[in-house]
């Protein structure tokens, strides 16, 4: 029946009589609408009459065709009439929405200046709330440290295990491989000047001061920072954080302090491990490929690397850990509403963390160089 659906139009003196044939359903309305739309635009047609005597079933899309045509004609001051409606047609067409005022106009898009102002304001707001979060975390951590308040049982251990223990392998593996790679690459250059023995200096200093803290931070960002943001964001979306607040439990103490405390321990620890394993990798290459005995390699290291270098590396990875922890917490806690906000918080955590880490690293390098501490 629907295959024969269509329209027959008879025109006479500004009026058009349209006979609808067949079902007016999703499968057929596209064609019917195209016919009617063109008819409605003709200047010489003032009145359109739809004859339903041969029309079959009318579904929502059919009703929409009539409704849309009525509005189109009304806008240009023309008339629509319906004739020969069966009871079923009447029942269906009764669903046509009454002419309502158009939905409230959306505000005009903000201009360039407005956008700049808005982004500055929102950046200021974000900075303030980040500051508040950090202050609150420190306050709560202090309260926990002085035994005034308690952490949830087992939370700290659980966090350390999931951040640290599970990260041991990947940090170890990558440091080892990086140490080896650097030894290979460096040796080729240094040997040209007969300075192959200095490969030990190069690897140990760069591992301790730069590579290990930086690489650990990158791995922690991907593994831990993203996880913190996703976890807190989901909790926020599912009102779990609101639940804590209404129970009178401080969400910062309950959720953030264990995570920040854990990453404070785990970041430098993994980094320290990375330093040693990286040097080990370099040592292996030096022994096998460069005929540099391990003893000599070790001697060079102990002569060259000082406690200050370690302090520099560990201090840096501590700052990196805080950047990751607070970026994840802050962005996760700020997620709101829908599923996509959690994804957004997670992505932003990774981008913001790595960006800030590189900047901070540059600042560290500049300051230490200016202070002539090498």
């Amino acid at each position, binding site marked *: 029946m629907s295959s024969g659906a269509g329209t027959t139009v008879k025109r006479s003196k500004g009026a058009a009589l349209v006979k609808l044939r067949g079902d007016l359903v999703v499968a057929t309305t*596209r064609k019917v609408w195209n016919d009617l739309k063109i008819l409605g635009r003709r200047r010489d047609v003032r009145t359109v009459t739809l004859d339903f005597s041969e029309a079959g079933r009318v579904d*929502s899309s059919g009703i929409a065709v009539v409704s849309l045509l009525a509005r189109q004609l009304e806008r240009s001051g023309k008339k629509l009439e319906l004739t020969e409606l069966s009871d079923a047609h009447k*029942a269906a067409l*009764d*669903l046509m*929405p009454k002419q*309502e005022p158009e*939905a409230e106009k959306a505000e005009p898009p903000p201009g360039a200046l407005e956008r700049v102002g808005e982004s500055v304001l929102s950046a200021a707001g974000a900075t303030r709330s980040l500051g508040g979060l950090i202050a609150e975390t420190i306050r709560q951590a202090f309260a926990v440290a002085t035994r005034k308040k308690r952490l949830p049982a087992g939370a700290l251990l659980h966090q350390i295990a999931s951040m640290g223990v599970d990260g041991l392998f990947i940090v170890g593996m990558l440091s080892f491989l990086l140490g080896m790679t650097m030894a290979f690459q460096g040796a080729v250059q240094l040997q040209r000047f007969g300075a192959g023995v200095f490969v030990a200096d190069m690897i140990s200093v760069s591992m301790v001061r730069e590579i290990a803290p930086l690489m650990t931070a990158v791995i922690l960002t991907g593994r831990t920072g993203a996880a913190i943001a996703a976890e807190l964001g989901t909790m926020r979306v599912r009102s779990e954080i609101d639940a804590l607040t209404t129970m009178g439990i401080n969400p910062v103490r309950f959720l953030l302090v264990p995570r920040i405390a854990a990453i404070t321990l785990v970041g430098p620890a993994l980094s320290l491990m990375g330093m040693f394993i990286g040097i080990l990798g370099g040592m292996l290459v030096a022994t096998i490929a460069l005929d540099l005995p391990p003893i000599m390699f070790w001697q060079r290291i102990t002569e060259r690397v000082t406690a200050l270098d370690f302090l520099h590396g560990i201090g840096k990875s501590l700052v990196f850990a805080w950047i990751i922890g607070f970026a994840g917490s802050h962005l996760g806690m700020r997620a709101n509403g829908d*599923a*996509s906000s959690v994804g957004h918080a997670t992505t932003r955590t990774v981008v913001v963390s790595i960006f800030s880490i590189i900047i901070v690293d540059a600042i560290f390098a500049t300051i230490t160089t200016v202070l002539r501490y090498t």
Partner: protein
Amino acid sequence: MSEPLIECRDVSVGYDGKPVLEHVNLTIEKGEIVALLGGSGCGKSTMLRALTGLLPPLSGELLILGKPLYDLELEERNQLLRRTGTAFQQDALFGSMSVEDNVALPLRELTSLPEALILEMVRMRLFMVGLPGHGTKAPTSLSGGQRKRAALARASILDPVVMFCDEPSAGLDPAVAATIDETLLHFRSALGITLVVVTHELESIRTIADRAVMFGRGSIMANGSIDELTNSKDPEIHNFFHRVAEKLDDGGALEQLTR
């Protein structure tokens, strides 16, 4: 009468091979409004998952429009599911889209209608569920009752033969709940949609349902008109319909200690 719209023959449903409901025999005819009832945890939501194509039954035959839903090829099954609509308990609106885009989604994905017609259909549906002018808003900016109504609009946009609603008026104020009941009745009278509604709301059951199917004790406990169930002698059904509190077993620990 032609073939029934939905037919369950000795169906068992459950998770991990453990049945929640067994020997379910149920027939739903075109144009009916059937309420699925039962206490919490009785398996009515599990049954609804089976009916909506989300959970294959453990055994038995489940026919929708005469076709075995779970024995069809994927494409055929999707074709069949497109003729049903489901409104979830949590509205399940896509948070990343406006209300309008949510409701228009099935039309845009599954039909080739021109955009002007799609927008008109959406406008009509939003009008029908009492949300005119809310189309451009984000779902999160609507109230709970408005979201449920937007979900009903989305579930019904393709003029389904049957619509499944999971607790459409749970947790809403009486006025909004009554509006939703009215909308459901309107769907049947105007669009001929058959409705299968899971609900606990006695008021709403009495208003809309032609028939109630009560689940309990691992299967269908009763199946009949609302009057029949209200006057049932079965204590469990009686308690449900007359809101009699379940006797909690207090264990008598205090008595033992004070004796």
